């Protein structure tokens, strides 16, 4: 029941996203056909493109065409590679997904325990460290952090491999199963490739994680403090419940609710930060795909990228809403 309701509220967002991406394609100054035909096109080619892409028709009709193309999975063709945009996005998506998910796991894995520890020991060293990380973390420009990490861990310390993408020059990709090199190499039992892929993944994932660490730790600490100070915790203490149960069973479950909401904001950031991190680390994901296309004035991939990212974002927020509803019965049961 909740799922249906939440889907219904997500629908207007999807509609809005599609309309906006459509408008973005038509907002190009000058003749859009020129942009899509490319700088080397002849007048005839331009006229052909104009007719082919329907730029000579009225706006509402163009929109219907656009919808029809979308329904068929046609996001246009890349000028630079000549391939259909959707296929290229699909091929490169696993790289970005692996990076983003690793960063998320790393971020949550550090931020939440840190926030809980800071809340449990107010005024201690951990608390102050948490506060500093929180304030400083949000100020770090992601691309700069990435470069700093490369300088320190690759150039100075020599621990990290060269930031040349998902694998080093000696390894070959494992047989395709999920597209995630970490998973695929384990499935194939190839530990050398696993280690190589992990090595390449560490720095970029850390870069993305550092920025989202800050809001997550801050919210965790604040909401744990609020939960621990609330009246039902006083009742639990007065009932003689064990400390472990009070902190983790009672306080934490309540305290995690705002953290889940913050995850939505973190996702929004990460989907954007993808672009920057992939550029710095030469990661072959959809972010770097879009940036390369952008520099080359190849617009179809950029629009495809924006559309896909937005739809992903809506879907992820939906999942977060559902997760929230799972933990908080007030959301589930209230009419």
């Amino acid at each position, binding site marked *: 029941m909740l799922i249906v309701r939440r889907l219904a509220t997500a629908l207007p967002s999807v509609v809005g996203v599609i309309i906006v*991406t459509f408008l973005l394609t038509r907002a190009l100054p000058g003749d859009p056909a020129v942009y899509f035909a490319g700088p080397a096109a002849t007048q005839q080619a331009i006229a052909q493109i104009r007719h082919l892409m329907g730029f000579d028709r009225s706006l509402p009709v163009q929109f219907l065409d656009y919808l029809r193309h979308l329904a068929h999975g046609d996001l246009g063709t890349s000028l630079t590679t000549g391939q259909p945009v959707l296929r290229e996005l699909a091929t490169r998506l696993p790289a970005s997904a692996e990076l983003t998910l690793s960063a998320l796991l790393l971020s949550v894995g550090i931020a939440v325990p840190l926030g809980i520890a800071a809340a449990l020991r107010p005024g201690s060293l951990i608390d102050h460290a948490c506060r500093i990380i929180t304030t400083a973390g949000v100020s770090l*420009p992601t*691309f700069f952090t990435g470069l700093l990490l490369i300088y320190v861990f690759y150039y100075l310390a020599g621990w990290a491999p060269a*930031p040349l993408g998902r694998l080093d020059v000696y390894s070959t990709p494992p047989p395709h199963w999920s597209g995630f090199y970490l998973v695929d190499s384990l499935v194939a039992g190839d530990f050398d490739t696993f280690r190589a892929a992990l090595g390449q993944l560490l720095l970029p994932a850390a870069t993305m994680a550092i920025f989202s660490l800050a809001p997550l730790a801050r919210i965790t600490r604040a909401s744990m403090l609020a939960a621990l100070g609330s009246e039902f915790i006083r009742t639990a203490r007065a009932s003689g419940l064990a400390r472990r149960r009070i902190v983790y069973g009672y306080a934490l479950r309540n305290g995690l609710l705002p953290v889940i909401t913050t995850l939505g904001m973190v996702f929004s950031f990460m*989907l954007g930060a993808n672009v920057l991190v992939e550029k710095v680390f030469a990661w072959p994901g959809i972010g770097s795909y*879009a940036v390369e296309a*952008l520099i080359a004035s190849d617009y179809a991939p950029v629009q495809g*990228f924006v559309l896909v990212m937005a739809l992903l*974002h809506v879907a992820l927020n939906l999942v977060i809403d559902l997760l929230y509803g799972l933990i908080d019965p007030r959301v589930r049961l209230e009419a």
Partner: protein
Amino acid sequence: MTIAAFAGIRRFDGTLRHIAYVLAENPVTGFAFAMFSVFVLLAVFGPSLAPYDPLASDTAQALTGPSAAHWFGTDQLGRDIFSRVVVATRLDLGIAVIAVALAFTAGTLLGLAAGYCGGWADRIIGRAVDTIMAFPLFVLAMGIVAALGNSVANIVYATAIINLPIYARLARAEANVRRSAGFIEAARLCGNGETRIVLTQLLPNILPLMMVQVSLTLGYAILNAAGLSFIGLGVRPPTAEWGIMVAEGASNIISGEWWVALFPGLVLMAAVFCFNLMGDGLRDIVDPLRRT
């Protein structure tokens, strides 16, 4: 002195004392205000303060590390990095300030209209804001700049658009709460028109919270603009801008010439950090209940 003037001064004195209390409690906030003044000075007087011409290249001096002559070293074209960083302050701060000003004005007005009038105005504005927020904001900025064209003006518009929803939502929430408040009713009864009420009664009441948000958004806007120029949008070489300087220095980092990217990056960080701290400090002054 008239009673009213006296009351006014008492209130101001009270506010000043409160601010002094917060600054004393939180020396970090005072530090942030000091940093902010430094940045403003750099933005205003930058070009006159720079020891070298930021665009003057001197290939003989290319890629020299920090020294007495060049405090931040030189880049691959022999340009003095310190001068470039100082001059870039005006551009980066300028982009951020204009973008946030636009976002704040448009967002607040739209939000007030939505929250105060309700009805279909609320629904349309709400939908528009929700649609913007449905995009990952940096991605939307990329798309807007790609669509409108690669220029600094469009960076400003894109940054303004993606920051609009925060103000719209904040204004709408506050307007909603106060819509039926007593002092609004009183103003209405005195015969004030609706627009007048919104501007003279509602606006001053929500301004403090907005100011907190402005400071935080400025930090975010600077990051955004720098990020966009890092990937090659908006600012073109040889213009000096923090993001593009980091991008230019990126390839040098791998070969060990760390100063080309580090100094612009550090100053960028400092600016964002300063605005975030100021925002936190302002929040403590305005609404101590929300301290974290």
